[in-house]
């Protein structure tokens, strides 16, 4: 009896196996689409949670310095959908000043909003709140983009539409987690990995008087082995990258081009398998961003034929936006030694050298 029962079960299971094979043959793609949609849905839930946590951090931070009776949430919600429209590139000549003007408009609007939301905050704290809102905006944009592709894929049930976003999910999550970590760092005023360049400049200029040379950018003149070093960094310890391009342009024009070399220190994306905190050297303006600052530095350096050297500290995308790790912090000492070596080997006594520490200077004074 049991053997007959066992044979019946086996027959049923074999039929199920055969039917599932036929179903996968005809509906396999639909099943694959459904699986991918489930994966995207899971990521969307995580992105939404991160976005909501970031919003809560923003609201709490603003409430610390704002009117306790007024709920800043509606105003912050409006800010989180703030956008910029890049200038048309139909006529690319003269586009850099247009982009610069657009960035200044964006920055001013954000700063004015933060002043209204948190009037009791000091300058550094306002910069930190500005940074928190900017990165929450970034997270919100990421969430909205993924949601758009998810809903579009669900509407058309097209494997190829869904595949476009599904393939990029690991990178998207990496960026989202980096943004999330940076929001916590900005809220508390902790240095992030991107501040490696600023930290090197701060180590050089500490103890010397400094003054503002451009918006949120300071300069200090320090003697070094008979050379005159002009060290530039963003004004810390608030969240800002300053205007190093404008600063370097001004300083070189003030010196009428009599600058021997420009050395720039910045963080650099590392390849997989490389150690964070390692340094490398190259030629050219080591600076990120849209390209406006880089354009300004390259223009003035080319005009006066000044060599521009770059020293970079390697780190991952996540590390650049998260609280600075010990490896990167120690790496800045090696970067500083490399900068000094470049100056000693590439210049002679009485030469003027500009050293620019590029990066977000949150948590780094001078």
């Amino acid at each position, binding site marked *: 009896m049991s053997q007959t029962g*066992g044979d019946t079960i*086996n027959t049923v*299971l074999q039929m199920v196996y055969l039917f599932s094979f036929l179903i996968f043959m005809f509906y396999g793609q639909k099943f694959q689409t459904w699986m991918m949609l489930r994966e995207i849905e*899971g990521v969307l839930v995580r992105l939404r949670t991160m976005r909501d946590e970031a919003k809560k951090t923003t609201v709490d931070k603003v409430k610390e310095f704002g009117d306790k009776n007024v709920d800043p949430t509606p105003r912050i919600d409006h800010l989180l959908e703030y956008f910029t429209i890049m200038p048309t590139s139909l006529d690319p000549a003269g586009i850099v000043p247009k982009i610069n003007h657009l960035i200044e408009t964006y920055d001013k609007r954000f700063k004015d909003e933060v002043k209204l939301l948190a009037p009791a905050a000091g300058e550094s704290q306002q910069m930190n709140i500005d940074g928190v809102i900017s990165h929450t905006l970034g997270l919100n944009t990421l969430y909205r983009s993924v949601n758009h592709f998810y809903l579009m894929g669900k509407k058309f049930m097209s494997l190829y539409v869904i595949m476009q976003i599904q393939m990029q999910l690991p990178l998207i999550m990496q960026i989202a*987690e980096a943004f999330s970590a940076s929001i*916590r760092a900005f809220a*508390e*005023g*902790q*240095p992030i990995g991107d501040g490696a360049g600023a*930290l090197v400049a*701060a180590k050089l200029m*500490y103890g010397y008087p400094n003054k503002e040379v451009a918006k949120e950018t300071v300069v200090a003149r320090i003697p070094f082995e008979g050379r005159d070093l002009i060290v530039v960094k963003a004004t*810390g*310890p608030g969240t800002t990258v300053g205007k190093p391009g404008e600063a370097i342009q001004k300083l070189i024009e003030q010196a009428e081009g009599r600058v021997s070399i420009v050395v720039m220190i910045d963080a650099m994306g590392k390849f997989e398998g490389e150690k964070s905190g390692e340094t490398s050297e190259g030629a050219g303006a080591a600076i990120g961003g849209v390209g406006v600052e880089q354009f300004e530095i390259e223009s003035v350096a080319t005009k006066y034929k000044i060599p521009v050297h770059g020293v970079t500290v390697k780190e991952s995308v996540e590390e650049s936006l*998260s*609280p*600075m*790790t*010990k*490896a*990167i*912090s120690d790496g800045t000492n090696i970067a500083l030694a490399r900068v000094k070596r470049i100056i000693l080997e590439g210049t002679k006594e009485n030469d003027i050298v500009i050293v620019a520490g590029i990066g977000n200077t949150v*948590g*780094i*004074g*001078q």
Partner: protein
Amino acid sequence: MIILYVIAFGMLSLSTYYIYQALGAYTEGSVDRALFFAIIGFTGIGVTMYMMSTLMRRLAKRVTPPVMSTTECLKCGFKSIRRFAVGDYVFKAEGDCQKCNVPMLITAIYAEEVKKK
């Protein structure tokens, strides 16, 4: 989540049943049938294990590494490491040196590495 657990349990049960069938077939002398059922059974167990490990990895909470501030005396080199406090920044003057009473300075702020198990 519950659906995934139900599917995993179902697959595990089915795989166990097939392995049992494989043992039965082997003892009866039907090696081909035993091999067939064993392959299905072990494949099912493998897929279930993979599903469960993926699920566990997703549920694992990310650990936020603690951020530390290093305070240093520039005169005698005395160092002290403590947890980061809001308001700390690199090159902030912080207290006096216990050895020589000179103002100390925060020279480094970094996140400690979380050791992977």
